[in-house]
């Protein structure tokens, strides 16, 4: 299967949705289940997944049952933490990221 075309500008909401869903999971998650959580079609989901793998936010593991599973890396966790902390700073009257 060929690699999906690269993305210029990822949608923040889709990235955050994927990061959050993986953060909530205790173990690596089946790709098909993650796609349901992403709420996008398979092509777009594949592009996002490749984009996130390239940036070290997630890793794809091939399990013995031949179903690909995705898990969040430490960088992915830190990235999601940054997003939610900025959201929290806004509501607490602070300038996010400063």
């Amino acid at each position, binding site marked *: 299967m060929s690699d999906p075309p690269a993305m210029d500008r990822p949608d*923040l909401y889709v*990235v955050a949705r994927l990061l*959050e869903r993986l953060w909530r999971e205790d173990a690596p998650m089946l790709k098909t*289940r993650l796609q349901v959580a992403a709420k996008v079609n398979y092509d777009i989901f594949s592009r996002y997944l490749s984009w996130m793998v390239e940036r070290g936010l997630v890793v794809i593991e091939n399990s013995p049952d031949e179903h690909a599973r995705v898990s969040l890396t430490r960088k992915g966790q830190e990235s999601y933490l940054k997003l939610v*902390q900025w*959201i929290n700073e806004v509501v607490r009257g602070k300038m996010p990221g400063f």
Partner: protein
Amino acid sequence: MILLLPLPSWLKYAGPLTMGFVLFVLAFSLRFNLGNAVADPKTVLNNLAHKLRAARYRVEETNDELITQVDSMSAIRIRARASESGTELTYRMDGTPAGWTVTLILVVSGYFIILIPPIVLFMLRRVRRFAREQVVPSLVAPDVPEVDSISVRIRKALIDSLSEGYRLSSEAYEAAKSNYEDNVIILVVLGFFAFGGTSLAFLAINLEVGSEDFRMSFLMSIAIAIAFTFVSVWLLRRRVMPRLEELKGWATRLEGALVEETAPAKPKDDEPSVFELLADAWKHVPKWLEVRRKSGLYREPGTWLLILCFAGLSFTGLVFASLMFVQSPLASVIVGAASVVLLYAIHIMYNRSKKRLDEERDRVFSDWNRRLGVMNFQMEKHLQEL
């Protein structure tokens, strides 16, 4: 008991009223000690706020205070001050907007003013029990772990954000509901005026009291008043309900997400993202703040209590002045002038309150939009730099 004593009548009533007033002032101004904590005031308040939010209390943070709603009537204001051992914590009782509104209604009602002292004592008891059973154990319990656990920090940020979103949306909903109910009361009062007006109009056309025509006109006045009230309340309801439903919807969604975040279970695959919920909610916050601003009675019950008291005194003064004018013109002029001064005072208080709320709204809107803009910029930049 005091009413049975052989005292001058003014003393019989002035004594209990003064005691009630003193009790009222003391209950809302006395500060009670909560204890000491070793960290600095900001950290102590921040950790305490998080624990109360995780226990699903509505918490508002200011510079050196936490304001937490205890129940529908009472709130607690917890203050942190730097001390030699770290931080000294004290608290005092406060009322919620609903609590202040009830107090205001009792003051205006006249005889029911005697209910205020027992209500205040009940509120104080609830607040003291909350301090003893919820706040002190939170101070003693270990703080939120500061270890490098990203998961713990993510959950803390989500809970704090959801709790604040829930507080803002539910306060906006309560303010809008209170405003709607105030307007319904005004329309019902106007219905009574409509009844009085139409009755007088029928009398003016010289209907004989007790005649069949008079009875018909009386029934017609009632029908007109009821029709006016029902139609105007229906129109108001039609206009306001969608907004109320929307506000209630936001409060329910944020509260639901907060409940799930404080007791996390295995997530469903198609579960909505909390990040998206919060990012969407933040776009509505300026509207929620505007709803609160428009409910002046809800936001500044103290000012409105004074305005209503002054309005009552002024109205009574003007009625007395007009009745006394023939018998005692000088006294009538003095009472009338005092009533006009009170009316002017109402005008000044109302204008000042409106100006203050408008300025507050402009400042909050500007800050909020600036912070949202910076947040969006930071997030987009973060994605590009990954």
